[in-house]
Structures are given as C-alpha cells and as structure tokens.
C-alpha cells in the first residue's frame, strides 16, 4: 500500500536573486527540485513519488515577478502568478489571449499562487505516470496507457513515441500562437529559446516535457510586439467546468487587413500531443483569404490529418477539428 499525504523531509533553500538560485542549482544539479507556486510539486511530494533531497524555493526572487513593457513587446517574469496575468492591464489591453487562457487554468486558489513558469514547465498528468508506475516517462520500460485495457481517453493523437501522455498546459499553446521566447538562465549564462522549441516530445526526451536542463531556470517569457492587439481566440474543453485539465484547447492569433483578409495567423492546440501542436495547415488555409464558415471548417478538418487515436480518445479528433474551426472563425470575426 502506498503511503500518501505525508511529505518526506527535504532541505529548503530560499534564494533572493536569480544568480543565487542558479548557483544553488549548479551545486545540487539533479538532487535539486525547483518550487514556485508548488501546485505540481506538492502533489508529487505528497504521493512520495518524488523525493528530492534539496528543494529550491524561488518565490523570494523579486526580479522574476511582474509584467514589464519593453521596446519589443512585453516580458513576463516566470514567477508572475496566473491571477496577476489575468488582471494585468497591459496584457488585457494588447495580449488578451494570455489573460483569457490564464483565467481558465485550474481554480482561483491555484491561480493565486500558480506561476506562469510553473504552468509552462509542469509535468505530464497521465494518471498511470502520476500513480508511480514504472512507465517509460518514469524511466521504466512500458506504457500502461497504450494497452488494450489502458484508460487513454485523455491521451495523445499525434507524435506519441512509447509515451502517449499529452501537454496539460493551457498557457503553452498561447505561447506558440504568440511566438513567445523563453529566457533560460544557467551557470553558463542565458539562452533564449522559441516556444516551439522549448517543449519537447518523447522522441527527444521521454522523461522531460521541456528542453530545460535540471540546473537551468526559466526566468522570463518575452512576447513580441508583432502580435500586440491582434485578433485572438482561446477555448478550453474539459470534463469539469473548473479545476480540470484540458481535453483539448485552442489558441489562435490572426492579423487581418481592413477588408478582413487574413495576413498572418498562428494557431496552436493543446491536449493532443506531448507538446502544444502548431497547426500550420490551418494557418496556410486561411492566409490571404477572408474567413467564412466553410473555410474555417476546412481549416479544422485538415488539422486532424495524420491523427492516430488510441482505444478511447477518438472523440478528440472531431473536438480538435471543431476547436480549430472556431478558433480561426471567431478570431477573424
């Protein structure tokens, strides 16, 4: 029997600066666990499935909090809470897509402490994995979701490779749609990674969801000005209306000319692959055209080409087609 709800002991460090946090991470490397809001971390700790020796509490690092306007757009500190993002005046005015998605994450209590960095770096929610089974993602040699009896209605349609877990984040597809850049700091310095490259699937690294190394820290997210004030659409479909992770979500950003002709478009879908999935075919379908119902439907239907459903997640195919259709239609209108 598994003992739950009793967190094993650890040593807690509370750095006040990014430099100190990076030094600590470099000292402890794989023994260290980064904690911000703690929503994902504490559920692992309570189940005693992750037992880090050292926990580095990032919440005292003031330079990682808040939304700043820059010459090229905005920079969101990775520790900024989802509530602060939902309420940020500049985000609501010019990058409403982020606020829309933030307001749909989990519950108010979780948004009040949950950070955007934690949301983007959160671990997979496959229930077999989260139960502590020795699956591929946990470093083992099996997948318990992709079996004849496996309960896999929440799992992947695309790009599965041994592991069939999906990206559970509502903010991740928004980052793809807005062409965000992730600012990562490590002992060797800073590197900036496009959102599309930040998230990685099991083919690249089956035990991690992002390309960040254990000794690195996501410090900020830059949103380019190019998408300020564009036309946006976000929708998330869940079993429950609150707290739940997305079955499928969609984030769309479009620019149209005065006549409504689409000049630029970026569309991304979450919950269908291990990474948020950019839907290039939908973008190409609507570029240079005015979006009507038929065109939106075509964009939606073409987006599911190549889907490989598991036993119980066929429903995600029409759901995804509909969300892409609504994303491009309602963003354009």
């Amino acid at each position, binding site marked *: 029997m598994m003992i739950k*709800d009793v967190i094993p002991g650890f*040593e*807690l460090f509370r750095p006040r600066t990014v430099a100190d946090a990076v030094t600590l991470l470099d000292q402890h490397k794989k023994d260290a666990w980064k904690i911000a809001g*703690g929503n994902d971390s504490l559920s692992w700790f309570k189940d005693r499935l992750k037992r880090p020796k050292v926990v580095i509490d990032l919440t005292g690092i003031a330079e990682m909090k808040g939304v700043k306007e820059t010459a090229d757009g905005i920079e969101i500190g990775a520790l900024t809470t989802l509530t602060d993002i939902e309420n940020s005046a500049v985000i609501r005015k010019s990058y409403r897509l982020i606020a829309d998605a933030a307001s749909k994450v989990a*519950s*108010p*209590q*979780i948004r009040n402490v949950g950070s955007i960095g934690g949301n983007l770096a959160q671990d997979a929610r496959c229930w077999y994995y989260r139960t502590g089974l020795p699956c591929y993602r946990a470093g083992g040699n099996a997948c318990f979701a992709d079996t004849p009896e496996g309960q896999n209605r929440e799992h992947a349609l695309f790009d599965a490779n041994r592991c069939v877990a999906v990206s559970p984040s509502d903010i991740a597809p928004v980052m793809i749609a807005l062409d965000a850049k992730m600012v990562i700091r490590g002992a060797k310095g800073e590197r900036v990674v496009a959102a599309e490259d930040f998230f990685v699937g099991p083919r690249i690294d089956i035990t991690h969801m992002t390309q960040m190394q254990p000794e690195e820290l996501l410090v900020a997210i830059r949103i380019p000005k190019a998408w300020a004030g564009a036309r946006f659409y976000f929708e998330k479909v869940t079993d429950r209306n*609150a707290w739940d992770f997305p079955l499928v979500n969609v984030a769309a950003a479009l620019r149209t000319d005065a006549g409504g002709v689409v000049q630029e478009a970026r569309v991304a879908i979450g919950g269908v692959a291990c990474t948020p999935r950019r839907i290039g075919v939908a973008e190409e379908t609507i570029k240079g055209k005015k979006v009507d119902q038929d065109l939106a439907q075509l964009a939606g239907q073409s987006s599911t080409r190549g889907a490989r459903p598991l036993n119980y997640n066929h429903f995600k195919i029409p759901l995804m087609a509909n969300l892409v259709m609504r994303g491009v239609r309602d963003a354009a209108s």
Partner: protein
Amino acid sequence: MTTARTIAFTLNGASVGADVKPHENLVELLQAQFGLTGARESCGQGMCGCCTVLVNGRAVSGCLYLASFADGAEVTTVEGLASGDALDPVQDAFIETAAFQCGYCTPGFILMAKQLLDEHPDPDDSMIRHYLSGNLCRCASYPQIVEAVRSAARRRLRRPSA
C-alpha cells in the same frame, strides 16, 4: 537534513512566530501550532477548496502551500473574520441564507467570497461563480451559497466599513 526554521507572520491580525519543517504545509502549521481547524485538508490536490486560507488577501489552498511560504505574510483564517461577537457580513449572510448543510466546506467558501468582495464589491452571478469555482460543496448548497454572496455584497455596500 530538514532543519526547522523560524518564520514570522501575521495571523488573524496578531504577529506570531513558528518553527516550521521545510516540508510542512500551511494547514498542518495552523492546526498543530495554533489550534486553528477552520482550514482542513480534504482532497489534498487543490480541487475542493476546504483548506482555503487568505494570504495577503488572496485565497490559497493551504494544503498545497508550504508553511515557509507564509514567512512575512499576512494570513487570515475563518477564525479571524469576526471582531468580538460581531460576525463578518459574509458570515452573517451565510447563516441567514442557510448556505450550508454539513458545514465542512463553509470556511473555504466564506474566505473565497471575502477575496471576491474585496476585489469586486458588487459582483454579478457569473463573477461569483468564477470566483467560487475552486470550492466544492458535497451537500450541493450552491444556490444558497450564491445567494449568500449576493446578500453579503448588499450588506457590505450598506456598511462600507465592514
């Protein structure tokens, strides 16, 4: 390993200190060291809202919140809402509207309603539902709870000092 540290914070208006273990959560701290049982761990994963505590005016799930995080913060539990014998308008409204049956979830709902009314003194129903979406009531007193929040808003608008 797991050295306890001393934290200082404001608890229901009083300055307090406590020795906390790194892995202790806020609900454990409030129950074990301060005898406050209004916030209780129920689901343990942030779904139910029973462990809701206000930290710097914002509702958090106390069972997912390390006690160390409270260092320097202003913490309010349901026990701290009344002043003397006078209940908070939100508490009065819950009683008058009978917005509970067993009462297990009530402290969480009341504290979340408090954050809502501090930020939006005159919320509409969709705003009320948005704010209360992280609190579950297994007795399903939801219609009365929404009514209680409306009533609390009216009481507070009449008595702006509360």
